[in-house]
């Protein structure tokens, strides 16, 4: 089956670091929205957006939590942008062992931005709503993508990984044993 082009909505938050004033309202709104029950607590250390801030070097960069990573980078870049030095970490969204950003303070489990997906949907993610200075702005745009040719069945994927781990023979034996119960 040949799939055609499909459309999807891509959600983006644009960050203008020159407009950031370091008020951290985005952090507070995020943590309140994701608290359970909702708005029950406002605690920046639980936020999925953090303003990387250095008053001495005039660095103000809001970053959103991305993927968890097990290991920190071996060697990092230092970027000079418009005469100011930034560590690579300043732009990195990873929940990573080298710093305690984007980890639940109680459990240490990684946090990840979910763009405030909720029912009913928010007009804009909370961090954007809380930003009075338009350092954060929200955009949705349509993007075309090619659908995968063949969608594999979930069970097929599961069996494949079991076979990979235990071997075909053992999986078949187990299945036959279970079927006799």
């Amino acid at each position, binding site marked *: 089956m040949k799939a055609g082009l499909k459309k999807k909505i891509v959600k983006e938050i644009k960050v203008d670091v020159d407009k950031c004033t370091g*008020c951290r*309202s985005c952090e507070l709104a995020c943590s309140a929205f994701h608290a359970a029950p*909702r*708005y029950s607590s406002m*605690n*920046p*250390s639980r936020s999925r957006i953090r303003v990387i801030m250095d008053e001495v070097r005039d660095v103000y960069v809001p970053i959103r939590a991305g993927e968890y990573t097990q290991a920190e980078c071996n060697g990092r870049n230092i970027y000079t942008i418009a005469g100011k030095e930034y560590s690579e970490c300043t732009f990195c969204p990873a929940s990573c062992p080298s710093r305690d950003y984007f980890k639940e303070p109680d459990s240490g489990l990684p946090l990840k931005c979910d763009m405030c997906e909720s029912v009913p949907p928010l007009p804009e993610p909370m961090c954007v709503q809380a930003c009075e200075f338009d350092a954060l702005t929200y955009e949705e745009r349509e993007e075309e993508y090619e659908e995968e040719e063949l969608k594999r069945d979930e069970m097929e994927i599961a069996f494949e990984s079991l076979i990979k781990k235990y071997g075909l023979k053992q999986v078949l034996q187990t299945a036959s044993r279970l079927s006799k119960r």
Partner: protein
Amino acid sequence: MRYAETGVNLEIDLSRGNIERVETDPRDMELYLGGQGTAAKILWDRVPPEVDPFSPDNLLIFSTGLLHATPVPAANRVAVNTFSPQTNLMSHSLMGGFFGPEMKHAGYDKIIIRGKAPDLVYLYIHDDTVEIRDATHLRGKGCTETGDILKKELKDDRVQVAAIGLAGENRVYTASIDHGHSSAARGVGVIMGDKRLKAIAVRGTKDIHVAKPAELFELCMHMHQQIGGSDGCGDWMAVDEDDSFHHDNFAWGNARTRRRGFWSKELEERWRRLKYDHMDRQTSCYNCPKKCRNVISWPGRKRFGYKCYGKDTYHMAAFKELDFTYDILGVAQEYGLDSYSTPQVMAFALELYENGILTDKDLPGLPADSGDRFFYLMEKIVRREGIGDILANGVSLAAQQIGNGAEKYDHNTIKRFEQLPIKLGKLNPPYFLMIATGEKMAITQIEGSFPQDPLPTMEERQAFVDKWEAVPNEKFKQYFLEWEKRNDISNEASCAITDWNEAMHYIDDSIGLCGFVSSFRGQFGGEIAYHINNIPDFLTLATGVDMTKDKLWECFQRIRTLVRANNVRRGMRRKDERPPEDHWAVRDEAFEQKLLDDYYAFKGWNKEGVPTRETLDKLGLSYVSEDFLRRGILADTEKNPATETSVESEKK
């Protein structure tokens, strides 16, 4: 469960190296709110008047406001209180930024420092981990430099640091405590230095609970937008470059020379370019939708931030222009110097030199240029070197020490504290009262709700009062409508206006709100975000205590009276409540003293300015009245036979 507050104070004894977490009495929150209010109670309870400010028994208290770390926008100002060696009275100091909310997330409403460390230490707090650590490697480091070093050492850029610079280390009386580009002024850095505490680094990750979270959050999101979009909030000087008000009306030099017509369009344009050519950005404090701080990079200097009138003090004292302030302010802030008091000390010294009271012997190698002279004096003061050792004690004490007629040049202090250099023609009666009786030491910490000047026409006044939501009472609208000439206003109105102005500051400084969205800013335009009519709603939702306007007003009265009690017990009386003699050109002693009598009576204080027993007992401060009676500060005029007998029988 405690709402809005953590219910825990951190007690640090630097002499013994002891660290304790002490649970607080929940009733204190209902009576004194938090921040400066509860700090005044602790100072009353634990620092008797015999304790010298430099004694290890003096306390240095960092207090979060009751609403810190709740969703309430612009609640971020930390109160720092102690007893000052300059005034021997209670120091009143505040700083914005991020320190207070971080403290609270670490689990503490207050950090209470007593004792003295044998050598420089810093305090490290990360939630339950609290350590007193060696800070000898930070000796002589600048304030923001110290913060920067500690963040690197601790490998944590979320740590919030409050530090002293060289001035605090050397116990300069006008030393401040600085946190990033925020500064706690008015006499607290000296005590931090005396306790050998270089810095506090705090990091907190705990939750703060509020009573009605969802309702409060909704109300706060609305308030956030309202403040963000309002011209009636924030520092207008961040955006309006017309600063003719200060330059044409305030006195230059040692509060001496008024330069009317100094300001011009040409100057404004030149200074505008100077600012925007060197400004990196404007920044905010925690959870505030205003950006009042201007961050400046000046060639050859460290980056610094300032707000409001802070950009004027140095160049006006030195008869220079804005480029001079930009050159010196960052250096002074790294040293940790109060940028309101310190320039006045320097201008005072130069006036003494010009008048032959200080000579080349006192100021060897003094440069010719006034700006160079300021740098020269600054270096002497922060090191307490030569004449700097005397000047470091502030204008009033330095004048006494120098003698030889120097006292005459100490013409702009009250209660031994440097005032804003305002020398006007005719008396403004509420200002007379605020300057005379204020105990927050600077007029900016007292004025703020009622406009400074009347509006010229009845139509304008009517339009102003029609949208004036902040008034506690309709009578203030009447006062404003009837007010035509600045100096012509009834004593009754002057008393009520002073009281209202003070009330909002005492409330703000206890709950942690910034004056630019509350107590200070309403005087300009009247459209202020927080006021006596809506603050109770925020407090009720946050604390779960049913707060009403009347109850909140009573809290103000209680806190204000307790601050006065602390100072009265240390000797403050009516004689100290005299604004500088040249503060206004036209004076009327009889009128002023009658006004002061009326105000004392209005406040429930006796002729000496001491709160009466009745006033104290009514506010639940009978522990104060008992102390006053015991010490003979109040006479036992209403002798109670029952108590007399019991005392007698005890003796037997």
